[in-house]
């Protein structure tokens, strides 16, 4: 089993992600550089957080057109798993691998804090070890996490159970107060229609060891491992 962590100029969570995946899964992890094309050897590709290309133009916009994204697209089209975290999520929406778009946080502030998210869909390859309604405590750190999609797109997301995480309070209530960035319907993470591409703003890799204050992020990496093992 092989994980690839894609590194763009300006990625800054690549090493954390590499470490967390290796630590939690015990599997092989490689860095994959933004100019590589042939990604056929990977089972899972992770687009980590950071500020790819300085967030110039729009967060993720330039990275979405880099060479490696052709390989990511092919990988996804083959049904293999893609996880985008934070800037990785932004890149996936800019690349059209996930629907919608990211706006600047409604507060116009960079939000860097622990949040609670409620697991809405426990049948994805990324969340199969969780249960719907479960609350995770994970950190966020972003300026553009204010998810937007038009009303028709939102209906489709809901109809297909593509909303995987919503921001909630510590008791699991999805409220405006618990929404750190103004995201539509408190959306914190979505999958594509096929279910093999997940984008999420919170950082599971920063919450996979007790010493970091939360281990809730392990759920994602362990679920991926389980998915690959049963496949």
């Amino acid at each position, binding site marked *: 089993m092989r994980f690839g962590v894609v590194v763009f100029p300006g990625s800054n969570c690549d090493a954390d992600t590499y470490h967390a995946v290796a630590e939690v899964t015990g599997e092989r992890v490689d860095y994959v550089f933004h100019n590589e094309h042939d990604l056929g050897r990977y089972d899972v590709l992770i687009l980590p957080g950071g500020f790819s290309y300085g967030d110039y133009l729009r967060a993720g*916009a330039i990275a979405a057109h880099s060479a490696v994204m052709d390989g990511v697209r092919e990988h996804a089209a083959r049904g293999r798993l893609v996880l985008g975290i934070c800037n990785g999520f932004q890149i996936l929406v800019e690349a059209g691998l996930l629907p*919608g*778009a990211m*706006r600047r946080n409604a*507060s116009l502030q960079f939000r860097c804090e622990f949040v609670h998210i409620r697991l809405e869909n426990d049948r994805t390859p990324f969340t199969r070890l969780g249960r719907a309604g479960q609350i995770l405590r994970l950190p966020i750190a972003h300026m553009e996490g204010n998810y*937007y999609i038009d009303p028709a797109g939102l209906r489709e997301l809901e109809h297909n159970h593509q909303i995987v995480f919503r921001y909630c309070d510590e008791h699991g209530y999805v409220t405006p107060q618990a929404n750190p960035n103004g995201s539509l319907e408190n959306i914190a993470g979505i999958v594509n229609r096929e279910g093999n591409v997940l984008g999420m703003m919170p950082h599971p890799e920063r919450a996979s060891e007790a010493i970091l204050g939360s281990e809730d992020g392990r759920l994602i990496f362990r679920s991926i491992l389980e998915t690959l093992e049963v496949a």
Partner: protein
Amino acid sequence: MATYRAEIYITFKPGVLDPQAKTIQHALESMGFASVRKVMTGKYLEIELEASGLAEAEKEVSAMCQRLLANPVLEDARFHLTGPGAGVTGGTGGQASTGRTTSGGGASLPL
């Protein structure tokens, strides 16, 4: 081939929340500018390009807007091209300046 210059404006689609604009509007109001009814923010870019004519330049800039410069989910782009091949003549050195603003139809977006 001739050199064209595109002045490109990217703005949010109507209905998309623009928190920066809201904040600016509040600031203007609190400064006493009671006249303010609406504020929009956006991006401005200038691109110089080589093209065989105005039509090709328009096509090229239009494609740039659609594929990279604007996010079609959130934003509209419109642009103004200057260079040889259209209407208004102006400036110096024999360079024609076209008053070609695309907005609505033709090479223009909404995307």
